[in-house]
């Protein structure tokens, strides 16, 4: 049994609670007494465990960058109790066998739910549907499908995928990138790319696919999720779609809420990411979209890479940034401290809504008696300096290195057990190699 005393909830009430057998068994107004046999949470905020819909765990295939275990450790450190492994592993997660392997590795790590996302097409080739039904029926119970990293560019394949997953209430998570408009694209197309001579990745290449796919989703009456929206125009299109009643949801990454393409000026590949960092104007539109609920959730797009893939010239570098361990702090800084959102909205965007979109049971539940004990404690008054060598992730490619960010996570409880104690991830005894 775990006791937590004097914890402030997102609604500002202060409570004592008890956890037993993985659920919250007792919840009462704080008696005000100092905790002797539990966690004293005075000054801290207790939130439902975070849920990430977009995580690259690199296992199987690129274990030098990350494994399910190290990714789970990074997730726990960042306050996550559920993450979603993107399908672009090697082999690709396009069969029941691969998704079950990832699922089992997640169970073995035991630090958070690891929910595999299935590929939409075989080998992410964009041509032939993967066995979506088999993945849905597997023990991993896949409901979210994505070719992330690649766009499902063929409109006919996209249409079929959207239709097909209706059988099991699945959702297609689209990486919106028109491939012909982004050949060899390296960064946002605009003033900075013109000046520094890098091939541009225009906003329209994202917006054209969003526009097409929301119309397809409307036509076939299915569920569409837009991964990592980065442009003001994309936010407008999704707003329009929602007003029309189309079943579309969307995510934004922490880095797109904070960073702009001006950072690319010095060609440091730490800022190389796909979709690229955009203009200040887009960043502001994304923040407003998230506050308004047009963008439903924050997702990390945690993308670990080994050092050599960033310690090189820009064009040789890999796209992607790690983000699990900094996500909450970046959202606190960009959305809470700016007063665009309150804590209830943060809980909605980072826990409740992502769990709902993906259909994750026992996740994203409000803190109440009977709810699953997936929780985190964060001290919003404390800030910390990001130090890449101290990350739990196996990779070091954080664009936030050296930045001082608000919100220090002290404890995380997953399924009734503490995975983070006093800011440190607990050691796990892995039962499966890897």
């Amino acid at each position, binding site marked *: 049994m775990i006791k937590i005393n004097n914890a402030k909830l997102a609604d500002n009430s202060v409570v004592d609670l008890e956890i037993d057998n993985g659920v919250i068994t007792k919840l009462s107004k704080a008696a005000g007494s100092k905790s002797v046999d539990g966690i004293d949470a005075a000054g801290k905020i207790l939130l439902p465990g975070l849920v990430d819909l977009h995580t690259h765990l690199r296992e199987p295939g690129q274990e030098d960058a990350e494994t399910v275990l190290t990714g789970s450790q990074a997730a726990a450190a960042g306050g996550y109790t559920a993450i979603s492994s993107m399908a672009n592993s090697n082999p690709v997660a396009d069969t029941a066998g691969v998704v079950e392997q990832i699922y089992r590795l997640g169970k073995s790590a035991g630090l958070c739910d690891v929910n595999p996302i299935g590929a939409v097409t075989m080998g992410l080739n964009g041509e032939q549907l993967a066995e979506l039904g088999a993945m849905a029926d597997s023990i991993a119970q896949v409901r979210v499908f994505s070719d992330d990293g690649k766009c499902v560019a063929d409109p006919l394949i996209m249409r079929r995928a959207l239709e097909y997953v209706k059988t099991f209430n699945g959702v297609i998570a689209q990486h919106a990138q028109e491939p012909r408009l982004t050949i060899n694209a*390296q960064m946002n*197309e*605009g*003033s*900075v*790319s*013109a*000046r*520094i*001579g*890098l*091939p*541009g990745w*225009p906003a329209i290449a994202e917006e054209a696919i969003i526009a097409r796919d929301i119309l397809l989703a409307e036509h076939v009456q299915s569920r569409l999720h837009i991964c990592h929206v980065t442009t003001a125009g994309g936010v407008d299109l999704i707003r329009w779609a929602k007003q029309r009643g189309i079943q579309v949801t969307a995510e934004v990454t922490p880095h797109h809420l904070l960073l702009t393409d001006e950072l690319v000026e*010095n*060609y*440091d590949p730490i800022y190389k990411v796909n979709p690229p960092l955009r203009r200040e104007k887009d960043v502001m539109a994304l923040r407003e979209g998230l506050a308004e609920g047009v963008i439903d959730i924050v997702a990390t797009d945690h993308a670990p890479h080994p050092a*050599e893939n960033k*310690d*090189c*010239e*820009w*064009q*040789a570098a890999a796209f992607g940034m790690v983000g699990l361990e900094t996500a909450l702090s970046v959202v606190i800084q960009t959305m809470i401290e700016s007063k665009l959102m309150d804590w209830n909205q943060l809980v909605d965007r980072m826990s409740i809504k992502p769990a709902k979109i993906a259909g994750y049971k026992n996740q994203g539940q409000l803190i109440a008696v009977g709810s699953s004990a997936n929780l985190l404690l964060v001290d919003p008054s404390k800030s910390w300096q990001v130090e890449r060598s101290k990350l739990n992730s196996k990779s070091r490619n954080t664009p936030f290195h050296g930045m001082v960010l608000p919100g220090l996570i002290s404890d995380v409880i997953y399924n009734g057990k503490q995975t983070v104690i006093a800011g440190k991830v607990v050691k796990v005894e892995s039962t499966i190699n890897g």
Partner: protein
Amino acid sequence: MITGHLLSAADLTKEEALNLLSTAKELAAITDGPNKKLPTLRGKTVVNLFFEDSTRTRISFETAAKRLSADVINFSAKGSSVSKGESLKDTAQTLQAMGADAVVIRHGSSGAAKRLADTQWIQAAIINAGDGTHEHPTQALLDAFTIKQHLHSEQSDLTGLRVLIVGDILHSRVARSNVLLLTKLGAQVVLVAPPTLLPVGVSDWPVEISYDLDSQIEKCDVVMMLRIQLERMADSFFPTEREYSRRYGLNSARLAKLSKSAIVMHPGPMNRGLEISADSADDLKSVIIDQVKNGVAVRMAVLYELLGGAQIGESK
């Protein structure tokens, strides 16, 4: 005196650029004599690190370094460890271990020179000899030198001159460096190209933009033709070579419309008959051969200043 590296024309103040040009002028005068060689950089090692083929730029730098008595190592990516997958970092560290004092780098990736300068891979002075579609600052310096030599040798800078840069601005490192440098020196720059070959965001540049060469040709002092690469046609930047040549090529009809004093420039290598007709290239207005010659003097000046050679007077 410039210090550190030369990565972009934007690195130079107007004063530094003009000083470089006058140093180049002095060096050119010396090397025009019977003994072309100066002892200034004796004992220094200059590495020409070329990841892209460019015989012209490489031999220009090589000649410049040798005239200053530096040791020159030519490192070409083809047939080297680079073609076996060695990274830029490892190549740079190797050159560092061998004691390179300056690295002249030509690389297909925009920003490669800047990366060498910003990382701790190598301590040498870095000279950008063309990085991807970004910049080629010594080309801009030699162009400014040539323009000044022919049109403004008595004036302090290029104020009042109108320079057309015609062609593939989007992919041109020559254009980017020239826009930065020539405008800094007071010239008015007009970029002439089809909209497909102008970058999105070009409206922020301190230049005029035109899609119509004929409307500009009569009122310029300099027309600089850029090389057009044939593979651009396959990517639909323009319909056919013939159409490009008709609309944006410098032919005899357009040559005849140039003002009496105007000069014709081209960074080379030329596609004769495509962006420039043979008679334009060989016309008296053409200063293309002077550009090549001045390239050596300007690169001598850059090496001389960056490697901190003795005063020019002393080395005579």
